[in-house]
């Protein structure tokens, strides 16, 4: 993987801002878009635009073909056994709400238990809070070890015969990796032993790790295209085939009906059953193009090594400044990380990121949609620098240099 060549495939880095380098360190929020993705969306709108599934004229047939090809591509990308296991949604958040509304709320009752971790993004916590409130089910938590920032091996009775769902973050958007070797696999195994289903929130991980739903043995998986160089507004929900009957339609309406009367209706089989209304056609095709981009240009092992190298430089650079607390397991970050959230003593995270922004460095500030975790580790807001395939050593050099300088000038002001 030649990083220079990869970087050239992202038009945004070609300059425009007076030739000034764009130091983009916020890919954990959203990645930049690859040229293949932009071209595919542009081509569809300019040459192939039509609705899908219903039209029998050539343009619509072609659009349908491209749309369904994207489903095949995504299915293959995460090694789903069958393309019908892929449902297109607006992204990870909708995918998880989908499972909460269309499956959990239909089947859960008082006494049932839902297990999540203390490191969940709001998207994989709030839907389960609502399911718990509305069904009487109980939320239980796999704890974060506040020294190592890894998840603790849960006590034996945490996952028990009452557990109906174990819904887990794969990679944290604040702490990075939170799973010690083998623990995720062990938790999934324990869930299945008691008959619980498993959802994996891959919002962050899809862009950095080879995902294999069959090897992981998960029942549901949620992800977004925009974290992996694809368009915004589209993502996927993997629903394992044996759940296709138990999961109800999330929405009802056009496209998903088999037969409708005035009083009743029944549905088409999956995945049509799960996709009501005109879908985000261009975005889905763009999602397919993002998968093509990965297949053609990205080697996950090389990507991992590239990111880890930069992350080690980032961690060392931040530590060299002094007065900075990094959240997360630094040792792990240097071996396999791609982001670092940190707090600068005496300067609010908003000021840090706004001042970095003025100096041409894009980082994220805030609680990163993990308020309970932020409270747990006693941090109000943090700044986060996140890395991706197109970042180079120079990006970190600029960040560290500007950060060092702004801390100095801020304290002197």
């Amino acid at each position, binding site marked *: 993987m030649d990083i220079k060549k990869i970087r050239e495939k992202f038009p945004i880095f070609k300059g425009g801002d007076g030739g000034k380098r764009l130091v983009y360190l916020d890919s954990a929020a959203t990645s930049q878009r690859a040229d293949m993705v932009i071209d595919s969306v542009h081509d569809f709108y300019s040459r192939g635009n039509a609705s899908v599934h219903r039209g029998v004229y050539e343009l619509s047939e072609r659009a349908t073909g491209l749309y369904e090809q994207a489903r095949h591509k995504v299915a293959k990308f995460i090694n789903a056994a069958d393309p019908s296991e892929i449902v297109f949604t607006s992204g990870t958040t909708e995918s998880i709400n989908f499972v909460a509304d269309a499956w959990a709320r239909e089947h859960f009752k008082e006494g049932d238990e839902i297990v999540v971790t203390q490191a969940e993004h709001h998207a994989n916590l709030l839907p389960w809070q609502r399911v718990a409130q509305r069904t009487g089910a109980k939320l239980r938590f796999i704890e974060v070890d506040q020294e190592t920032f890894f998840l603790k091996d849960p006590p034996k009775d945490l996952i028990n015969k009452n557990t109906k769902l174990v819904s887990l973050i794969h990679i944290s958007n604040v702490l990075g990796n939170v799973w010690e070797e083998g623990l995720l696999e062990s938790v999934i195994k324990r869930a299945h032993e008691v008959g619980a289903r498993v959802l994996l929130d891959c919002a962050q991980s899809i862009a950095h790790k080879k995902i294999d739903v069959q090897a992981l043995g998960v029942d549901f998986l949620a992800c977004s295209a925009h974290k992996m160089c694809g368009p915004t507004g589209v993502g996927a929900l993997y629903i394992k085939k044996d759940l296709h009957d138990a999961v109800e339609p999330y929405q009802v309406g056009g496209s998903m009906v088999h037969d409708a009367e005035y009083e009743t209706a029944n549905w088409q089989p999956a995945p049509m059953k799960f996709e009501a209304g005109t879908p985000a056609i261009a975005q889905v095709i763009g999602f397919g193009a993002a998968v093509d981009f990965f297949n053609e240009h990205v080697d996950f092992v090389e990507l991992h090594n590239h990111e880890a190298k930069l992350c080690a430089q980032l961690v060392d650079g931040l530590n060299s400044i002094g007065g900075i607390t990094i959240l997360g397991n630094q040792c792990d970050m240097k071996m396999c990380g791609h982001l670092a959230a940190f707090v600068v003593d005496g300067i609010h*995270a908003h000021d840090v990121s706004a001042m970095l922004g003025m100096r041409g460095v894009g980082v994220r500030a805030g609680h990163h949609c993990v308020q309970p975790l932020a409270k747990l580790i006693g941090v109000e807001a943090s700044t986060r620098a996140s890395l991706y395939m197109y970042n180079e050593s120079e990006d970190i050099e600029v960040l560290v240099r500007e950060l060092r300088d702004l801390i100095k000038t801020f304290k002197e*002001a």
Partner: protein
Amino acid sequence: MADQFYQKVLMDHFKNPRNKVKIENYNFESGLDNPACGDIISMTGIIEDGVVKKIGFEGSGCVVSLASASMLTEKCLGMSIDSVLALTKDDVVAMLGMELGPNRLQCALLSLEALHKGILAYRK
């Protein structure tokens, strides 16, 4: 050079906040937080004959939210509550003397929103 981003006056209000006290025997108060970043601003004060006689703020947050609160208390002292309620986003932006994007604007407006909330509650 106080980082180019923040004007000298803004940094001065951040480092030496004015009216950062809880007013004793206040007759209006309110508090607000910005869920995006955890900034918290609370306001207390005394209104007599429709005029802000005393005003103070407390809270924690970034330079923009705290300096904005400090500057706002100076600006509003002695103003009629009608005039205070008439203050808008544009007045705060002019007061801070800097361009703010939509995200950062929330920090800047937190104190004005808290103040408006407190005065409206007092009126009732």
